[in-house]
């Protein structure tokens, strides 16, 4: 286990003006077990407690209660040892705008104990790997978001850590840069590096991770591989828009090939394992009752359906 956490909790005292304070329970009991070599994702809406969890594991924030071991060391008692074994790329990136990215890279390398020569060799390696050689000496503030993000990643990897934390690594990136970053994360796995990433993008968690947790309001609501989690819901989703929503809901819920029906605003979602064969039967059932469809679609179940099932709301609405 590269990460083992038991009942991690964090309560912040937030100032509310005029001397008043308020307790905010950002993380309310998280248990984690991440295997070495895994890409592990924490998926959840903004404010779910993902960043606070990562910050506790990376020794930035001290937990209010609970324990965690990262790379075999306690995050509170052996923070220095943990820091030697992790790379941490925060949401903000942490690239100094005023200096060239190469300077930040060299500083990070030398702080970890490398000699000037070793630091140069390692920096050049990373510049090459992330296609940053040509812009290595430009002040970071002149770089694009994607370039800066690549520098942030390179700085996080400078010590060849066995574990890297990536907090919202693709937020604010355009689709091209996002796809590139996914490739870079996959390369990390190929090299045996463990990755814990947080994201509020469903497709990112789905495409990238081996296992994930879904976090909402500071708690884990589901855990597993993307495939298993989706299977738990159903293989396929039929989304219908029609008049007579309530009647249709009752009707579909009674069909034995449909696992579950959920009404959401003006549409219905029917979960079923074999959508291709279920769909004609479903249409026939609706026709017998003279229920007229406005629209219908058949999709594979996504992690959003998993989220919906566990929290009662869609991740798109949860932010």
């Amino acid at each position, binding site marked *: 286990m590269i990460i083992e956490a038991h009942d991690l909790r964090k309560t912040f005292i937030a100032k509310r003006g005029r001397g008043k304070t308020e307790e905010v329970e950002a993380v309310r009991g998280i248990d984690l077990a991440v295997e070495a070599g895994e890409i592990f994702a924490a998926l959840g809406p903004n404010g779910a407690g993902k960043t606070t969890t990562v910050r506790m594991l990376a*020794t930035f924030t*001290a937990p209010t209660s609970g324990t965690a071991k990262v790379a075999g060391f306690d995050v509170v008692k052996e923070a220095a040892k943990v*820091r030697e074994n*992790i790379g941490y*790329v925060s949401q903000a990136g942490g690239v100094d705008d005023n*200096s060239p990215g190469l300077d930040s890279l060299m500083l990070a390398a030398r*702080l970890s104990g490398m000699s000037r020569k070793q630091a140069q060799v390692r920096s050049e390696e990373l510049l090459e790997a992330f296609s940053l050689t040509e812009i290595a000496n430009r002040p970071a503030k002149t770089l694009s978001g994607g370039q800066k993000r690549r520098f942030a990643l390179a*700085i*996080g990897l400078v010590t060849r850590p066995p574990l890297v934390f990536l907090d919202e690594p693709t937020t604010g990136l355009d689709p091209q840069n996002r796809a590139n970053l996914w490739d870079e994360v996959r390369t990390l796995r190929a090299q045996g590096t463990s990755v814990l990433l947080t994201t509020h993008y469903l497709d990112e968690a789905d495409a990238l991770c081996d296992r994930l947790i879904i976090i909402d309001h500071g708690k884990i609501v589901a855990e597993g591989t993307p495939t298993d989690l989706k299977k738990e819901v159903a293989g396929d989703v039929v989304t219908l828009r029609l008049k007579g929503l309530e009647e249709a809901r009752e009707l579909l819920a009674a069909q034995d090939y449909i696992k579950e029906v959920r009404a959401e605003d003006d549409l219905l979602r029917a979960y079923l394992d074999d959508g291709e064969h279920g769909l004609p039967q479903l249409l026939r059932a609706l026709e017998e009752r003279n229920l007229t469809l406005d629209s219908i679609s058949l999709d594979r179940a996504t992690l959003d359906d998993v989220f919906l099932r566990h929290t009662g709301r869609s991740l798109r609405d949860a932010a």
Partner: protein
Amino acid sequence: MLRHTALFLGYELRFLLRNPIWPVFGILQPVMYLIFFAPLLGSTTPSGSMADVLAMFTPGSMMMIALFGSLFAGFGLINETRNGVLERLAVSPAWPPAIILGRVAKDMLVLVLQAILVMGVAMLMGLRIGVIAFVVMLGLMAMTGLFAASLSYGLALALRDENGMSQIVQFFAMPLTLIAGLFLPVSLGPEWLQTAAKFNPLYYGVEAGRALFRDDLSNSTIPTAFGLLGALAVITLIWSMRSLRKMAG
């Protein structure tokens, strides 16, 4: 630990060498005071000679760079509390105090270089001081820089807000300047002003500087200034390091 401080210092100096113009701007203000204001002070010294006026006025104008330069050093750090740089450094193998110490060392160095330039201008205008006084004055400037910069970083990390910080620095800079007798010795003023000045650490710096420039090397204000500024520097350094640790909540 010393290695980490040196690494941070080196990083800061590289930045400075790429943008060497800003510290030069910092000395324009005291140099203008020397050129345009010092000549008005002929009647305040017994002899009225330019050399005496400069011996009285130059230390004050040097403290001005400390106040209006080093005291603003923390502004850059406020941005780094938001752009993730400090967050990254806090979970890196870096020795945490080095994050502050490296910067403070840079600020001290800048202040000493600025002090050399200001003293150079004053000497061109007719100031005469001995080598020992010159060197001890640089030491005093380094100590003032250590205190002012640590205070600035402490404020920056505690407030983490540019607007609040600029208000507070401005609020303190003005009375500190006046009550230290930066422009004219407070000994020219009434009793109550002299008493008030005794509570201003900058006052001792200015008085020690004036003693040095009079070649009065055994004057008690010199060790007092070093001791006081040194002690305050240690306190503010500890404060800023604690604020750094508390940043994460």
